[in-house]
């Protein structure tokens, strides 16, 4: 884990210490309900989805774009095509089938995505940053399965670390559509899913304002200030009247996460 150690405050010395990334993954896992079907992106989303399945949501159905449906890995897969996914899945199908039959018709409850850059309307960039497309400053991996996951899942949750560089007023390239330029855009574009419902970061949780669809800070982790969240946002971040203080990871959540990651608790 790259982020710094957050020590529990003095009032809760019995709570175990955890990192900001662990808090983010636990928070993301809590957003998934038992029995949901979840289309899982690579990286942080995969850790969170597997944590949910290992804790409060044993009936969560994990679907990976490699074609594994109902994968039940005991450890985090090394990649979306890890053998452990195929060997533990209810069914393994080809790549055209996973996108055409399973994702496109809207039968998946939640799409769980990462991002390199996201804007206040939840549009995601994983393609290029800076310069122009033909000579970008940074060439990112590209779209992968994300555009159709963002379009067709009933709802979307995005997990990424929050920095002023990654949380921008307008993404440099729209790889996957959130709410476009605001209300009405998803319907106009024919996107069948409801769009991103939460952005879960290493500071807290953002949710779309019901009227404007602009992402607003609605939750913070213990010890994180509104000022810190605003400082690490590249737009003028709106804040809910009373942001929820999100409970720290429980000992059981931390143990399950570290076990999945193969780290001794």
């Amino acid at each position, binding site marked *: 884990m790259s982020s710094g150690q957050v020590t529990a405050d003095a009032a809760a010395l019995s709570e175990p210490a955890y990192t900001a990334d662990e808090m983010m993954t636990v928070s993301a896992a809590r957003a998934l309900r038992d029995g949901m079907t979840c289309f899982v992106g*690579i*990286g942080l989303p995969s850790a969170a989805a597997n944590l949910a399945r290992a804790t409060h949501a044993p009936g969560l159905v994990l679907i990976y*774009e*490699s*074609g*594994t449906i109902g994968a039940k890995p005991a450890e985090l*897969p*090394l*990649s*979306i*095509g*890890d*053998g452990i*996914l*195929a*060997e533990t899945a209810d069914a*393994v199908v*080809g*790549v*055209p089938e996973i*996108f*055409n039959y399973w*994702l*496109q018709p809207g039968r998946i409850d939640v799409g769980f995505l990462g991002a390199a850059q996201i804007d206040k309307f939840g549009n995601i960039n994983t*393609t290029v940053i800076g310069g122009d*497309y033909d*000579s*970008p*400053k*940074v*060439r990112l*991996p*590209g*779209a*992968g*399965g*994300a*555009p*159709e996951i963002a*379009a*067709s899942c009933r709802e979307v949750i995005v997990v990424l670390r929050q920095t002023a560089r990654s949380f921008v007023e307008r993404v440099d*390239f*729209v*790889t*996957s*559509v959130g709410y*476009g330029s605001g209300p009405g*855009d998803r319907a106009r*574009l*024919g*996107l*069948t899913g409801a769009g991103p419902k939460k952005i879960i970061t290493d500071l807290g949780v953002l949710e779309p304002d019901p009227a404007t669809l602009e992402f607003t800070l609605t939750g913070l982790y213990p010890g994180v200030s509104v000022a810190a969240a605003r400082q690490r946002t590249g737009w003028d971040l709106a804040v809910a009247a009373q942001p929820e203080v999100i409970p720290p990871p429980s000992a059981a959540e931390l143990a399950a996460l570290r076990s999945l990651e193969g780290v001794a608790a």
Partner: protein
Amino acid sequence: MAQIVSLAEAVRLAIRDGDAVAMEGFTHLIPFAAGHEVIRQRRRGLTLIRMTPDLIYDQLIGAGCARKLVFSWGGNPGVGSLHRFRDAVERGWPAPLELEEHSHAGMANRYVAGASGLPFAVLRGYNGTDLYRLQAPDGGNPPTIKPITCPFTGERLTAVSAIRPDVAVIHAQRADRCGNVQFWGITGVQKEAVLASRRSVVTVEEIVDTLDPRPGAVVLPAWTVTYVAHVPGGAHPSYALGYSARDNDYYVAWDAIGRDRAAFGRWLEENVYR
């Protein structure tokens, strides 16, 4: 009808300078040994097609084999960036690389269209994304993404043009002595890639007398395959379900090798050209 030949022979016969080549395998069964043979035979001007370029295309791009890349996700899975790919795009080294960029759903459907003998496929996707913007008339690339209206419902959908590679290259678990090919586990888009292509090269872990039927396995009959080569471990460092696991240390170590032109050059000399 498939011919069983050596890997060097298969590459020599099937792949020519300037060809459009699809080496497929969705994080599983990636035909690395065949890719290294292409580097060794110093093919040039290739259009490389692959959903997930992975290390195999990072190596081919860095070695100067590619003119153009057709793809949907170019990262080092579970590790980070593909630095040879980035060096080519960001700094034109060792040569500029033309890009034709799609989503996974788009690429998969383009292969389906190719395998189906159709000029295009239809999907509900791309609307509102800047991937459309890359197809602008003055953008250089011939368009491969266009809006289409459903003739029955009027819904606005997206058409993507078929992929018809000159050559598909895949790695499979087994073939029999007649050249019938069988693979299982995560089967990706390899069947579509082979059926969409004019020629194909299949490397296999094992050549057996008879292919036992296996639930969920894909079988490509010998008359759909051009060349089969016996290359045990030919998917290393990716994995071959039932034969070998992913060599994750290799993927992690690649980050430092791929990041540095000189280190990459040494890697080529020591591991491919030698």
